[in-house]
């Protein structure tokens, strides 16, 4: 399991626009670098990142080697009712990681 950091407001008002930030540790090896013996280091990247709020999709991203190592993504969600935000990263070499956080809405 790679280290990941997900952050968003601890408690949101109903209908409030909140910023969600997700960071995961991953080398995002581009496949264009060479090692000391001159051999190409094979590509190894996270290829997709999705976020669902409850059952509904927030964003669904396809990532390519041009995304920097330790991919950081920031996007926006409108808080409606308390529910799960589910984050899924999928990549090469069978990389898959799911994180679920609760978005708490209402005072």
């Amino acid at each position, binding site marked *: 399991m790679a280290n990941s950091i997900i952050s968003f407001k601890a408690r949101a008002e109903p209908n409030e*626009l909140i910023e969600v930030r997700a960071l995961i540790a991953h080398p995002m090896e*581009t496949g*264009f*670098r*060479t*090692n*000391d013996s001159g051999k190409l*280091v094979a590509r190894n990247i996270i290829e997709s990142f999705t976020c*669902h*709020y*409850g059952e*509904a*999709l*927030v*964003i*669904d*991203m*396809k*990532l*390519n*080697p*041009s*995304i*920097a*190592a330790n*991919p*950081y*993504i*920031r*996007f*926006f*969600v*409108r808080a409606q009712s308390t529910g799960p935000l589910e984050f899924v990263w999928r990549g090469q070499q069978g990389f898959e990681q799911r994180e679920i956080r609760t978005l708490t809405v209402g005072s």
Partner: protein
Amino acid sequence: MKRRETIESLIALGATRLSFSALGLMSCLGPNFAKAQATGVDLTASNEAIKEFAQGKPIVQKNVQIDVASLIDNGNTVPIQIGVVSPMTAQDRVVSLLLLAPLNPVVKVFETNFGERCAKADISTRIRLATTQTLIALVRNHDGQIWQGQAEALVTLAACIEPADG
């Protein structure tokens, strides 16, 4: 913005041979900048990607803003923000976004679909840039319209093609 215009106008005058002292830092970047803008740059992959995304629809330069540092000291991690002017209601929203770096080895940087719960068409991330280039963001609106925004990025340290350490 002013500095970029200065460089552009100087290059237009064929002034790339101005003395180092006259341009200072700009001259270090000048030749690289000129090369990126000169003819001979291969934009085939980028044009293909644009065609594939637009699917024959006309591309309108509006509503798409790319926020990236104009001068990038490290191409390995370049913060970038792409914002689209759109109410993002159920009836009036943008559907997908594609970011292109035409001079990177893989021109598509990322693509995203905006789901029904995405309240603002605004994505920030960090990308790699191999060289100075003009980034292109294409957006598909719910009605099929294609919008485009661009931003120039001057890169002093290239990414992607560096040898690994150790």
